[in-house]
């Protein structure tokens, strides 16, 4: 397909400067406040960007460019968005160009997070493309003097049934696409799909398997310098003294930058920067104070912190009606994103304009934060998203963008590339918060849950940039900014309380989120946020209840579920796994779990088999069979890839991962102190069955597997060993 446009500065500058060639090129308007003007509600992100040419532009040569405010994070979004546009425009995905999040070029679609990209951007692009097609056909009908039912869009032209054709390029001369979206265009009927629902190979993979320029790490701008930062050894350490003179004289060093506790070196060649970073680190003397909770008592700390109660479900909390009362407490350690590639960014300050190339999940909020940090008007800052190493949420990407911005401002003119070290990434990225959940339920005489009382407690799951004070480098400056006070994310999606409400039919259910504003370890959004822990807890507890009710776990779930799509994925996963016929071997067990992500997005059920080695106390996920319904499936292979990956990543979190620290420092600084799943442990088989819903809304895919996998593994371990493990990472006694 097309070359990766994100790494093609010439393509982007063409788009930025070549307005004459484009149909009615215009910078995206500021978000329209449709709610205020009373305009009709439009699908997906069309609601905010209501001009067709914010999404699709066709130049007079017929070259079609699609714009999205979302980012490629390794989830394959570029390919799925191209499929959607190609379907509606009657062209091949290969013929399209795609521009991803860029504050100068694309709509502002906020963060690429929460499995929202297909819902927001895919829906907008699909409707915009459908309307563009119908406008082009309408123009062609007038020019050819034929009725529109004799015309179709095909391979970049409108073709009449008598064989006459007009290329899109010739048709857009009258600024055809600079019109308001109406959201009323007829979408292609599922029976006629050419591209949607088909496997399309990911557009970004060929470069990634052959050493082509693919990542922000691979950007090489003319005259680019290399920077490294030196971080304090712990969150609140202060720089006592440093003599930077010898470092400034090291080979290739162009600058040693100090601003309060902020230290960096800038050099001509990358390894010169690395060498100077080590020397600078050795030269720095720091004052450290113990500021972290005692690691062995972290859950006592969390349990006793002042918390703000957030009601989720207002049940009575009385559990007297049932015959059988069960109670359980579950805990989850701090866990990290731990991207394989530490964060990286490139920035250049030239002619009063700051440009930052970043693997951020949200270039528009990052632009605001960086503008505040470097005290430039936002209009003077441009953030361009370029692929990075998989992020799985809010990792160091934004902070590295801020580092690059600060250093580019300090050494105006030349581009500066900043690459974090592994140790810096591990020690300074925001983690997924430690969490505690308490579940309490009553079982009635028919083996049904009659009452439910559940609470979840955690620090925040959202400290993303927006305010400059949420950028780590800002804390270290001589005039520091402080982080914004954490707030709980609102329902229905929620943060720590994401998926805290049980999806099952329970007559009386009370659910409360106990939001802890304190943040001794830096935390933010890790893939699925609180959904991982809440689903782990609820789906473990459901199995405990099923056991008490002497019911099969799959039957027990179905007994409490009416939603036909929920029931369908559960039955599909159970059937494909062979749940009913499973025969347990020695030291093996099978487990089941189900969730609807955020209780409003993708449905996922899975059955797993684990193998337990009682001597080494190791657990291996041996086999997993999942069924997923994420609405209309655009690229089924992409969905399968995401779900397979989610299952393995969740297995790694669940069986291995815990951020280690002492009362002063983070000690999980490399892969030996933060081990993750390796090849020797991979399952023999992971099946993913996509339950497609042609014509239904997109529900998103990226995070659906995280929670159910954890619970299914815990349930399988209980079946294999008789031991119920409730603390993540799950560790056999």
């Amino acid at each position, binding site marked *: 397909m097309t070359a990766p446009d994100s790494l093609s500065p010439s393509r982007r500058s063409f788009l930025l400067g070549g307005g004459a060639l484009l149909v009615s090129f215009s910078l995206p308007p500021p978000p329209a406040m449709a709610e205020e003007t009373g305009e009709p509600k439009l699908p997906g992100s069309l609601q905010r960007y209501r001009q067709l040419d914010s999404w699709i532009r066709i130049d007079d040569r017929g070259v079609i460019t699609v714009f999205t405010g979302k980012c490629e994070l*390794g989830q394959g979004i570029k390919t799925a968005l191209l499929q959607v546009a190609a379907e509606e425009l009657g062209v091949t995905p290969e013929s399209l160009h795609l521009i991803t999040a860029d504050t100068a070029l694309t709509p502002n679609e906020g963060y690429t997070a929460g499995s929202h990209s297909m819902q927001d951007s895919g829906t907008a692009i699909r409707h915009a493309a459908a309307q563009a097609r119908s406008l082009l056909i309408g123009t062609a009908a007038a020019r050819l003097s034929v009725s529109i039912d004799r015309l179709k869009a095909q391979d970049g032209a409108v073709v009449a049934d008598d064989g006459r054709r007009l290329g899109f390029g010739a048709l857009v001369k009258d600024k055809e696409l600079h019109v308001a979206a109406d959201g009323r265009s007829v979408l292609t009927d599922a029976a006629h799909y050419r591209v949607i629902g088909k496997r399309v190979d990911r557009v970004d993979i060929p470069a990634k398997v052959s050493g*082509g320029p*693919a990542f922000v790490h691979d950007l090489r701008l003319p005259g680019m310098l290399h920077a490294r930062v030196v971080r304090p050894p712990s969150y609140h350490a202060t720089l006592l003294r440093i003599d930077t003179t010898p470092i400034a004289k090291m080979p290739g060093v162009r600058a040693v930058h100090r601003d309060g506790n902020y230290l960096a070196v800038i050099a001509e060649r990358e390894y010169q920067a690395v060498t100077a970073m080590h020397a600078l680190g050795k030269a720095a003397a720091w004052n450290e104070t113990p500021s972290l909770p005692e690691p062995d008592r972290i859950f006592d700390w969390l349990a006793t912190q002042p918390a703000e109660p957030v009601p989720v479900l207002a049940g009575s909390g009385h559990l007297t009606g049932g015959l059988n009362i069960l109670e359980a407490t579950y805990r989850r350690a701090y866990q990290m994103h731990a991207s394989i590639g530490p964060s990286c960014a490139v920035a250049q300050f030239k002619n009063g304009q700051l440009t930052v190339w970043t693997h951020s999940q949200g270039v528009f909020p990052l632009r605001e934060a960086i503008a505040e940090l470097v005290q430039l008007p936002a209009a003077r800052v441009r953030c361009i998203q370029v692929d990075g190493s998989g992020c799985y949420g809010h990792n160091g990407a934004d902070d590295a963008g801020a580092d690059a911005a600060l250093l580019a401002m300090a050494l105006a003119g030349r581009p500066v590339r900043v690459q974090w070290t*592994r140790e810096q990434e591990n020690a300074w990225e925001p983690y997924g918060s430690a969490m505690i959940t308490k579940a309490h339920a009553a079982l009635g005489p028919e083996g049904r849950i009659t009452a439910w009382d559940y609470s979840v407690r955690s620090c925040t799951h959202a400290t993303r940039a927006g305010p400059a004070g949420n950028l780590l480098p800002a804390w270290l400056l001589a005039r520091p900014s402080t982080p914004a006070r954490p707030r709980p994310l609102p329902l229905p999606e929620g943060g720590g309380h994401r998926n805290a409400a049980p999806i099952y039919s329970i007559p009386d259910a009370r659910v409360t989120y106990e939001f802890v504003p304190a943040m001794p370890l830096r935390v933010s959004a890790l893939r699925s946020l609180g959904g991982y822990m809440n689903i782990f807890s609820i789906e473990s507890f459901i199995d405990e209840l099923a056991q008490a009710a002497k019911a099969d776990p799959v039957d027990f779930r179905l007994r409490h579920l009416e939603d036909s799509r929920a029931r369908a994925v559960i039955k599909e996963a159970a059937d494909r796994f062979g749940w009913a016929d499973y025969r347990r071997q020695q030291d093996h067990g099978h487990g089941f779990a189900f969730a609807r992500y955020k209780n409003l997005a993708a449905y996922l059920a899975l059955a797993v088999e684990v193998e337990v080695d009682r001597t080494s106390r190791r657990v291996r996920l041996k086999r997993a069979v999942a069924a997923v319904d994420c609405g209309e499936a655009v690229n089924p292979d992409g969905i399968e890839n995401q779900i*397979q990956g989610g299952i*393995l990543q969740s297995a790694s979190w669940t069986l291995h991962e815990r951020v280690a620290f002492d009362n002063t420092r983070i000690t999980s600084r490399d892969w030996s102190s933060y081990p993750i799943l390796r090849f020797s442990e991979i399952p023999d088989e992971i099946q993913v069955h996509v339950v497609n819903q042609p014509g239904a809304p997109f529900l998103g895919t990226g995070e659906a597997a995280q929670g159910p996998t954890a619970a299914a593994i815990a349930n399988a371990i209980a079946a294999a060993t008789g031991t119920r493990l409730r603390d993540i990472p799950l560790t056999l006694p």
Partner: protein
Amino acid sequence: MITLTVNGKAHQLEVDPETPLLYVLRGELALNGAKFGCGLGQCGACTVMIDGVAVNSCVTPVGTLQGRRVVTVEGLGTSGQVGRLAQAFIDEQAAQCGYCIAGMIMRAQALLEHNPAPSDTEIRTHMEPNLCRCGTHVRIFRAIRRASETLRHASTPQGEMFP
């Protein structure tokens, strides 16, 4: 002055012999394939082959490589004409973010050059040093298996299968 042979081409380089190979590949030679992951030899993102053996380039001083053959993923093909192993990765869509993939391919290449028909256990054991965070392992495994089968069923001599 160091002479470094990468992908069959000799380069005369003016670099500190202590410089890890990774920085020379990415800097002086402007090759993207080998990636910085940890700088500690713990993750395999920087894997290249030296005399046919998979090696972490981030901890290999360039001064030790005089007269030895370095092969990076760029030596196996280009994005326009990908190598056979890379093609197997495309066929299996064996990448998510893709940051680890060039390293995975190089480690697998070293395996298949010595053992064109590895068992499942041999593949797992050989790939153990390389980390993937997206959870693409099962597809990576299948891609290596697929390449091995291509190799076995091909009539051309082994050396031509994997240039």
